[in-house]
């Protein structure tokens, strides 16, 4: 069986991302190890209660991994929201929206009924998109 172990987001600042995903979103640190010789920090977080999947928060690389222009372009693309989307599920979208709003998360849109359920979305500090969905039985009349 092949399964997802970790997914990855590019982030502009790992400390900022760590604070967001743990203190604001309430996730757990799965790993945080700095390889001094490589000038590299492996930082992985994940939701409490779902231990077999993690989100690796990788810094936008500079030289020699990426030339300066490409690095700046990647950082800009992430900031523009083109870095990718993480799809989360919740059993109560409205409650999660209220709780996370109270914890300082600014949502892109309020919980909205869709044919597939109720969902909303927000961004991490780098601009990565996170969609939060309460899945319901498919009902085209709801949207």
């Amino acid at each position, binding site marked *: 069986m092949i399964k997802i172990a970790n997914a990855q987001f590019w982030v502009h600042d790992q400390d900022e991302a760590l604070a967001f995903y*743990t*203190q604001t979103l*309430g996730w*757990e*640190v*799965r*790993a*945080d*190890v*700095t*390889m001094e*010789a*490589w*000038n*590299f920090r*492996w930082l*992985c977080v994940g939701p*409490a209660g779902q231990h077999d999947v993690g989100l690796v928060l990788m810094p936008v*690389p500079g030289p*020699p*991994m990426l030339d300066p222009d490409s690095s700046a372009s990647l950082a800009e693309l992430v900031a523009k929201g083109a870095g990718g989307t993480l799809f989360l599920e919740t059993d109560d979208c409205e409650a999660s929206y209220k709780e996370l709003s109270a914890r300082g998360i600014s949502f892109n849109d309020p919980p909205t009924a869709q044919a597939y359920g109720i969902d909303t979305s927000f961004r991490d500090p780098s601009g990565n998109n996170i969609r939060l969905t309460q899945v319901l039985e498919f009902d085209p009349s709801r949207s």
Partner: protein
Amino acid sequence: MAPLPLARHLVRAKDLADARYYESLSVRDLAAAAGLSQAYFSRQFKQTFGESPHQYLLTRRLERAASLLRTTDWSIAHICFAVGAQSVGSFTTSFRRMFGQTPLAYRAMYPPAEWHVRIPRCVAQAYGRPQNRTFREDGVTAAP
């Protein structure tokens, strides 16, 4: 509407401890989440879940601390405050009582965190290459 069973109120407090253990939560906060007086809450919590709310919160913090000792290279003080403990001294005492050894000794029983996380080969290839080296062939025009 029928009143909620007491256990439903107690679970709210338990959920709060599970979710926000890293904040400066106290038994008083847990009792408030349950909407009960602190003394009554503590008695009922222990009767329902088999351990006191203080013990539940403490063991949640210590479980997370043990995980961070195994999977990060953070200092003991950093881990202590990251899991909501208020002082390194009392954290170390509680940890030793629970695990039978100090946090440092506990960490030493496990492989270094960098082994545990198994840095993927693509990362090692990208970041592990020697950098800032010059070689004699640099700048030499290839022979025709």
